[in-house]
């Protein structure tokens, strides 16, 4: 019989309801919802659940956690991107041991063959006296993407949220984008991908999951926009046991590897973050933190390679 408790509960319930109402009413989509969830639209379908207090509450289906399967998005919406976001990735080179869990997670979730890794881990041994290190390389999702400039059919495109995607239904397989990319990040489906099951192959192609991959088209890392829509992190970020990858939104000035969250501007300034081949003018969206103060030798990664 706590009046305090009830009033507080009422206040919170009121907040949730207001948030839900606002979310439902807002005609212009605001980048941040005030309700309990991430940028998810209320579907109007409500589900009855038991709350901690033993009360029966109604929650819109779209706000259930973890977020259920999202409704399919049209091709033109996929080409526009998630408004108000600008995705960015920070890779801490001092943490990478060449375990390649990121690579296997990405390959597994996108059903791609291990010959055609989208995420590559390179041994960087630049000069005689410079320190060798392992460099996980994703698509840079450049702000001046040379690959997009040369595509003849608009099959690869740059979105508002910074992500560069490939439309495998449009791609004619000319491979000009592969020649144009200085980071050699793109791969080509030279044959029918045997990692794609018959069932998956018949599903309609979704630019945001880049699945199913098709013969004769180009593929590459897509920053997992389908996960970002759900408020989750890309598969490589969650898979790394050392937390090497940090993913976030430049407009929120924050990046996270799931366990640790940092303020992006502080992180890059403090740790002297840089971008790969910045002098080419591609304006990549992936930042690297230099490999200082590593507590494991580079050679350990070579053993993993051979194994």
């Amino acid at each position, binding site marked *: 019989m*706590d009046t305090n*408790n009830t009033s*507080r*509960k009422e206040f*919170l*319930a009121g907040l*949730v309801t207001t948030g839900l109402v606002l979310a439902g009413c807002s005609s212009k989509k*605001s*980048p*941040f919802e*005030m309700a*309990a969830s*991430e940028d998810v639209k209320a579907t109007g379908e409500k*589900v*009855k*659940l*038991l*709350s*901690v*207090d*033993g009360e*029966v*509450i109604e*929650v819109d289906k779209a706000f*259930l*956690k*973890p977020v259920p399967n999202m409704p399919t998005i049209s091709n033109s919406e996929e080409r526009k991107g998630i*408004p*108000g*976001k600008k995705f960015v990735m920070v890779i801490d080179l001092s943490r990478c041991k060449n375990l390649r869990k990121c690579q296997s997670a990405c390959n*597994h*979730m996108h059903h791609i063959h291990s010959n055609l890794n989208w995420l590559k881990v390179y041994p960087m041994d630049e000069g005689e006296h410079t320190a060798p290190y392992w460099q996980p390389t994703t698509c840079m999702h450049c702000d*001046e*993407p*040379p690959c*997009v*400039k040369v595509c003849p059919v*608009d099959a690869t495109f*740059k979105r*508002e949220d910074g992500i560069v995607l490939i439309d495998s239904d449009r791609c004619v397989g000319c491979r000009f984008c592969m020649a144009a990319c200085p980071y050699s990040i793109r791969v080509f489906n030279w044959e029918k991908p045997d990692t794609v099951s018959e069932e998956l192959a018949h599903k309609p192609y979704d630019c945001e999951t880049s699945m199913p991959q098709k013969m004769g088209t180009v593929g590459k890392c897509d920053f997992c926009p389908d996960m*970002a829509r759900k*408020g*989750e*992190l890309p598969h490589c*970020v969650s898979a790394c046991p050392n937390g090497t990858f940090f*993913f*976030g*939104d430049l*407009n*929120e*000035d*924050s990046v*996270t*590897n*799931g*366990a*640790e*969250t*940092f*303020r992006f501007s502080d992180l890059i300034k403090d740790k002297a973050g840089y971008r790969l081949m910045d002098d080419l003018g591609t304006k990549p969206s992936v930042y690297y933190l230099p490999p200082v103060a590593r507590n494991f030798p580079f050679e350990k990664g070579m053993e993993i390679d051979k194994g």
Partner: protein
Amino acid sequence: MKSKIINISIWVFLILVAGLSVKGQDAEKSPLIVTLSYFTVNNDYQYLKVNAKSKVEGKFQPAAGVEIQLYLNKDSTGKGVGLIGKVITNEKGNAAANIPPALKQTWDLSPNHTFVAVTDKSKKFDETNTDISIAKAKITVDTTDDKNVTATFTEFKDNKWVPVKGVDIKLGIKRLGGDLLINDDQSYTTDSLGKVKGEFKKIGMPGDEHGNIMLVAKVEDNDQYGNLRVERSEPWGVKFVADNDFFHRALWASRFNSPVWLVVIAYSILIAVWGTLIYLVFLLIKIRTLGKQEEKNQA
């Protein structure tokens, strides 16, 4: 004597076969590891998350398509009672369930519950039984204008909410995929009044278009209380102004947004050249008509 030997040898053979088949069966099955966690958001909405993984060749792999039964309580034999639901793990081996209103009676009976996750024996895995014990708890958040945050942790004991000492609470700002800590302190521990205090030091953080940020107080992976999370909007962020300039003309833009200079030059050249070519075709036609005329004249 002969029949005895035959008898014995048949028995030995049968035992060997049985032993091998059992060994074979065991060798195929890999151990299934099921982890169960409890979450509550805003002291209101609650759900269970379950993850199944198996150890294959020394490496952990997510176990997809595993059916798991979730129960609200455990009886004396260790079996689950009060079925919450049956879920099937997805590609990552994860599944989640909410507590249905039908279990209200059982839920209200006690402040403590032991959630049980049970999997049956299948071709790939043996049966498993995992449980966690959760006590009902709450976090309440108060803020002052000068950006001080106080979070109070209480648990439901003897029909009322009492503060708990020694619980780790983290205070953060909700961001994509994670929460940014509001200052440099990693986490706080509740005092005897169940309170923690922190100062919001991340000045200049971008908020939404009104300058609001979502303040978060959370308890993560607590043995007694599970995972709790409370979110609250505060106007402590910087107003976010959307960049509406993205769809401008550029070399990397879509085919409708070509730079003007390129469009002008390309189309002028095309029109000039193909204009000439069409003129030439016209000349050719003229030759043809002249020829036909000549034929008629000759005829």
